[in-house]
């Protein structure tokens, strides 16, 4: 923590950045903070409650960073993959931001969490996460930590669902998606949802019906999962913020499984690694095509 605060203070003092984006202690646990003055660097914290993926603020479509000058942003290894995605998709220039990489041993599911981090309490997405050390970073702080072994429960749940009949899967998802109120929090929190106008808001034509009924909900979640294919970094933010508690991570995980198995792609923190959607190989598997 000392290391992080000192670094933030130094960066602000020497004027190489005007804002440091990190986490602070809020009334309900950890929360994002924009540190603008060197003395405020003391507000910064980093512990297992710092679950938010701050990369979402970097998208030029979001207003929060406008006029705040040059930014330094705290990223966990998984967050760094989202930054890599934004660089890959020309939303952020690498030299435009200072990345403070944080060594990470997993986080809790919730910023309010009071539990100590253990194999039981750790966020599901951190189970089996291979990344301890941020690679896409200008500065790396924190102490090395052990991770937690996989597979995650989500992965297991995907396999369980795949073993069911299509009809049973249909029933499962209709029950889950019935709770969707189309608040689009999943979209707002996603670091890689940065369209000027979301397809869900388009009216001519209206591919995704806007009412919160089964048809529109299904279209929306299909559309969202397709758009994140080969882009989702599995930060789990969509599922965390869903007020209906819909297991959205299962959809992105299912797509990630397809993309991994078929095209050999894993989320990467290297912006130069091409996205699997937008590239192809002549020998891509096509057993499903007559």
């Amino acid at each position, binding site marked *: 923590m000392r290391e992080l605060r000192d670094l933030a203070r130094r960066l602000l003092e020497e004027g190489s950045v005007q804002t440091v984006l990190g986490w602070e202690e809020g009334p309900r646990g950890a929360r994002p903070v924009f540190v603008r003055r060197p003395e405020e660097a003391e507000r910064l914290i980093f512990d297992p409650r710092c679950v938010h993926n701050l990369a979402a603020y970097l998208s*030029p*479509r979001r207003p929060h960073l406008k006029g705040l000058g040059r930014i330094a942003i705290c990223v966990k290894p998984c967050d760094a993959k989202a930054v890599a995605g934004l660089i890959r*998709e*020309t*939303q952020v220039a690498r030299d435009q931001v200072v990345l403070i990489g944080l060594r990470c041993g997993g986080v809790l599911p919730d910023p309010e969490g009071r539990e100590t981090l253990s194999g039981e309490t750790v966020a599901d997405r951190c189970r089996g996460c291979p990344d301890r050390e941020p690679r896409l970073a200008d500065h790396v702080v924190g102490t090395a930590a052990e991770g937690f072994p996989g597979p995650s429960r989500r992965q297991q749940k995907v396999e369980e669902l795949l073993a069911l009949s299509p009809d049973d899967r249909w029933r499962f998802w209709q029950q889950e998606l019935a709770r969707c109120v189309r608040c689009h929090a999943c979209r707002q929190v996603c670091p890689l949802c*940065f*369209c*000027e*106008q*979301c*397809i869900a808001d*388009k009216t*001519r*034509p209206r*591919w995704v019906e806007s009412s919160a009924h089964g048809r529109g909900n299904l279209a929306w979640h299909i559309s969202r999962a397709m*758009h994140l294919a080969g882009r989702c970094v599995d930060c789990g933010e969509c599922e965390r913020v869903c007020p209906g508690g819909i297991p959205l991570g299962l959809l992105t995980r299912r797509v990630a499984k397809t993309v991994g198995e078929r095209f050999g792609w894993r989320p990467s923190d290297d912006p130069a690694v*091409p*996205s699997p*959607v*937008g*590239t192809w190989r002549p020998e891509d598997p096509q057993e499903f095509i007559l």
Partner: protein
Amino acid sequence: MARIGVFVCHCGENIGRTVDCARVAEALRDLPGVVHSVDYKYMCSDPGQQMVKQAIAEKGLTGVVVAACSPHMHEKTFRRAASGAGLNPFLCEMANIREHCSWIHEDREMATAKAIDIARTLVEKVKRNRPLKTIQIPVTRRALVIGGGIAGIQAALDIADGGREVVLVEKEPSIGGHMSQLSETFPTLDCSQCILTPRMVEVYQHPRIRLYAYSEVESVQGYIGNFRVTIRRKARSVDEDKCNGCGACTQACPNRKVPSEFECGLGKRPAIYVPFPQAVPNLPTIDRSRCLLFLNRAKGRPDTCKKCAEACSKGAIDFDQQDRLVTEEVGAIVVATGYQVYSIGKETGRDDLHGYGEYGYGTLPDVIDGLQFERLASASGPTAGRILRPSDGKEPKRVVFLQCIGSRDPAKGMEYCSKICCMYVAKHTMLYKHKVHDGQATVFYMDIRAAGKGYDEFTRRAIEEEGARYIRGRVSRIWRDGEVLKVQGFDTLSGRPILMDADLVVLATAVRPQPGIEALAQKLNVSYDRHGFINEAHPKLRPVETSTAGVFVAGACQAPRDIPDSVAMASATASKVLGLFASEMLEREPTVAVVNDALCAGCFHCERVCPYGAVEHREVRNRAGQVVRVVAYVNPGVCQGCGTCQATCPSKSVELQGFTDDQVYQQIQALGL
């Protein structure tokens, strides 16, 4: 409000037999926006087209649906008719109720219901059609021809004679290609160089041809009518402006033991050389990998030998010459890079080409390929036209020719037929007989493929008049036994094994595209098959066009070709190029993608998927001139209209005109319950 006219065609009985056309017209009349709906026996007939024109004029139609045959059949017809009546042609759509309905169904009820559905989708689509204008692109009326063999020469001369400038690029020091290596040509036995060299000189002297010999295409940018080509002019180490082609330098060079490429390794040349006496341009080139001075420089030693420079009275030798890059603007490109012959030895870097070790190629000096035989037979060749075998210089009395080496052999070579071998082997047997009267030529063949004017007569002449012995069968092994070669094979007609002696064996090896063709094809963005041959746009109807507009293909880089085929293709490309250059502007279908600047988030997925590189980055500036955003821009000259960008764009901020989301959406909606 939309005012749509529907015209249902009976196509005589073709549609009317299974589809109740009157009922289709009636059903569509009730659709919102349809103000006119009729059926008629032959819509494509003159009276039928008049009906369309009249309705457009009288009812003020804003869209037309012709329910008839496939749009591939008559879309142009009806769009022209609509245009004739003052309606934008892109407001006319065809509903295919013949190929896709009446011809494939028997149940009249179901066919009629389907025809109504099909027409309804098009009515809903055409309501959303927008008037489009054909795209006009300026054309740079100069052409680039890549490859200076007979195909490239012919294409260049035809285009230049047609009044347009040509840039001809040849990677070797001289133009002429493989044809300049041949002794005589089938089926007339006229001298190859005698007919070729005048054309080479014509190229050199033509006021509208700019020749870059010893040069290669480095990169290609742009699109039809507007290509920008960078050409690498490799350093010859000779100043072409000073050199007068006297040849003193080549005489002075002490390293005279370099195997000559032109002689297929059967002769030697100096390190500074002109590939053959009639070379165009007649300029020497220093082979830096063989020149003593450059070999010394590579080892960090001082320059020692400067004999060529000392011999040159013009001071033309320039040891410090560098490669130069030149840029040329052209509107069309002809690819005519020709072929190489399959090497019987194992090819490095190609696991699939195993070679023919059983024929001892590369180890038995008297087993040669067809091109080497051409050089032996050529009066200008290393033996001055005498057939002498390489090992001991003796005249071979028994020559065995093997056809289909590497061709028609999917297991070890190529599955395709190399096309020219049957003919040139017949020619070789004759050339041999004419020079060695008491010699015996024997040919092992799989089939004789002699389809061509005078071709079958030619092979029959070889067999019947010139005494060549043709054995149908394959040779399994060749080995050396003292001074003779043992040839072991099988006669499949008599069913007997054969073991015979030979003094010389000539392999008719497969024709393959030039090495590096894939890299060139990628620069040009044209497709090629797995052997590297350039794909034509359509095997029947567009044989000299490629998948990229403005790039044409001639000669053996497209498939194995003989000289008349190559020349015919070359002239065909010239006519295509001259047709393209007939006007200053080029008209293109407006089915291109257009970006909505306000909505584009600049993620450039579209750029990644575009098969044509049509997507560019465009800066959006504010009033103060500062760049506020960078968005995608689709260059309409390059876009071919596949629409992959639109399906990929997450926010649908790029739209393919003529197939917009709104149009497709309405079609899907129209099929709803």
